[in-house]
């Protein structure tokens, strides 16, 4: 004997099945929104205000508005960002202008898309009480200076101030060696180490390398030539979001610093706010250009300098292949 399901039970069962089916259909399919393009951005340092516009773009949904789902990957000292970007392990990476040029010479086809700093924040700091009042005076002394080995600006300073007797040591000991006077000077980002020292009431004097004549684009965002050729639209969308993100961050860093601080609690909110103030003029466009815009002449100058310093064998044959400004 076959027993039939009561009509009410059948109705409940049918409604349950319909509900389950509706839940099983992805939300995206219901409202038919296109899926976001997943890309990765590799930073070369921990989250700090120098990446403020990136986090602002993420917080305000600007990447998503451009159809991108950007994974921002924190970096550390020694993260090989140029190599990772050129080899396609990540779509975008934070590099410096000289790294773009030197890696290209060795077969890593990087293309710069955006530069955070139009004026390099790199500098050399000395204690306020130091007898050195200029880079030249420092470089011609026998001071111990903490500097990352292999940086082109070390060669630049050696060439500019020949006969220097400074003793160079790595920066690995951090600020402790500087504060203790074990080193008499240290390379710095104007917006980083001097800020930390200022908050600790350690007065310092900073010699800007840009003012000293070496001014590469710094904290630049690059991609590989292959990715740019394959997905120019994604690159343009990424840059558009960055420009808007940086414009927002420059206007109101206090709105975004707490989220950066959550990712990097080692840097206090106070330090982040101070760093944001100090970097403002080095990031905000001097002319009518947008944030991140790069000038051809600057790349030509940098390539010439690196050739002169022996870091490059030859300047790139086509300088326009080195960078790409997305249309405004």
């Amino acid at each position, binding site marked *: 004997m076959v027993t039939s399901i009561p009509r009410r039970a059948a109705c409940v069962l049918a409604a349950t099945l319909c509900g389950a089916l509706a839940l099983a259909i992805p939300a995206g399919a219901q409202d038919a929104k296109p899926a976001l393009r997943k890309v990765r951005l590799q930073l070369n340092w921990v989250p700090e205000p120098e990446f403020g516009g990136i986090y602002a773009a993420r917080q305000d949904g600007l990447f998503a508005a451009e159809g991108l789902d950007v994974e921002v990957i924190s970096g550390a000292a020694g993260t090989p960002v140029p190599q990772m970007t050129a080899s396609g392990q990540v779509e975008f990476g934070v590099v410096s202008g000289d790294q773009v040029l030197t890696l290209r010479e060795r077969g890593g086809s990087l293309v710069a898309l955006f530069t955070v700093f139009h004026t390099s924040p790199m500098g050399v700091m000395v204690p306020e009480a130091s007898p050195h009042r200029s880079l030249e005076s420092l470089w011609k002394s026998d001071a111990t200076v903490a500097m990352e*080995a*292999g940086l082109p600006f070390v060669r630049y300073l050696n060439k500019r101030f020949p006969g220097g007797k400074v003793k160079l040591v*790595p920066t690995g000991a951090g600020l402790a060696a500087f504060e203790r006077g074990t080193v008499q000077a240290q390379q710095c980002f104007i917006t980083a180490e001097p800020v930390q020292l200022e908050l600790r009431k350690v007065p310092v004097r900073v010699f800007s390398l840009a003012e000293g004549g070496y001014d590469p684009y710094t904290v630049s965002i690059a991609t590989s030539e292959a990715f740019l050729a394959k997905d120019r639209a994604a690159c343009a969308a990424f840059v558009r979001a960055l420009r808007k993100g940086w414009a927002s961050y420059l206007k109101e860093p206090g709105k975004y610093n707490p989220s950066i601080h959550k990712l990097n609690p080692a840097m206090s909110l106070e330090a982040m706010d101070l760093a944001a103030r100090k970097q403002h003029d080095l990031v905000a466009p001097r002319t009518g250009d947008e944030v991140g815009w790069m000038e051809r002449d600057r790349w030509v100058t940098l390539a010439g300098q690196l050739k002169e310093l022996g870091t490059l064998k030859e300047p790139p044959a086509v300088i326009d292949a080195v960078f790409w400004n997305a249309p405004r």
Partner: protein
Amino acid sequence: MIARLLRAALPPAIVVIALVAAWDIAVRLMQPSEYLVPAPLAVARAFLEQRAELVPAALRTAGSAAAGFAIAAAAGVLAGSVLAASRFLMRGLYPLATLLQMVPLVAIAPILVIWCGYGPRTSVASAAIVSVFPVLAATLDGMRSTDPGLAELFGVCRASRLQRWWKLELPWALPSIVTGLRIAAGLSVIGAIVGEFVGAFAGDASPIGIIILSAMRENRTDLVFASVALAAAAGFALFGLVSLLGWALLRRWHASAG
């Protein structure tokens, strides 16, 4: 003697040549960019072009490693002997000594700079810290495995504590100590380079660690490989010297030196 040495050197030489050949073939077939994997010939060229800088640098690093190794060897044997002499000390201090092995050297290297200052002292300290534990552990294990019958005999003969250590426990532990020293020899080069990464002087007197850092920054992968090969050669030389010393000490009476 020469024939014996050749017999010993031939198998590793064949393996090295085969590996380099395989590396070269892989690079020719896959043609990766130079910044990712350089060809063996490019590495050889980088070495030849910069040998005037690389060889003295490797010698400086080897010097720091050897000094650190010597300190670790002396400290390790001494500490191992002291711990072996007292069950109470061993129970109390051995776990702490094990911590030496767990210490992330990269994290404490900056502190070493503050304590020891810039220059070779930091590299020597770093090499000593990283290589002391294998010697200590090997000494302790060797001494604790002393034949109880012989120990009893020394007791019956009323040997002093020092006599027992010198004439029984130390020789008994020697094969084990030599093994610990061999492990420490390789580690000491790694320790020296980590120390150089944070505390060495750059410039004309750069050690190999600084050249590696500089070459990495300039995307000179060929030079990085050449430097690493030289550092490995320094470690291998130290390992060889220790093995030779071990062979000289043990050849007459221990099977491990055969």
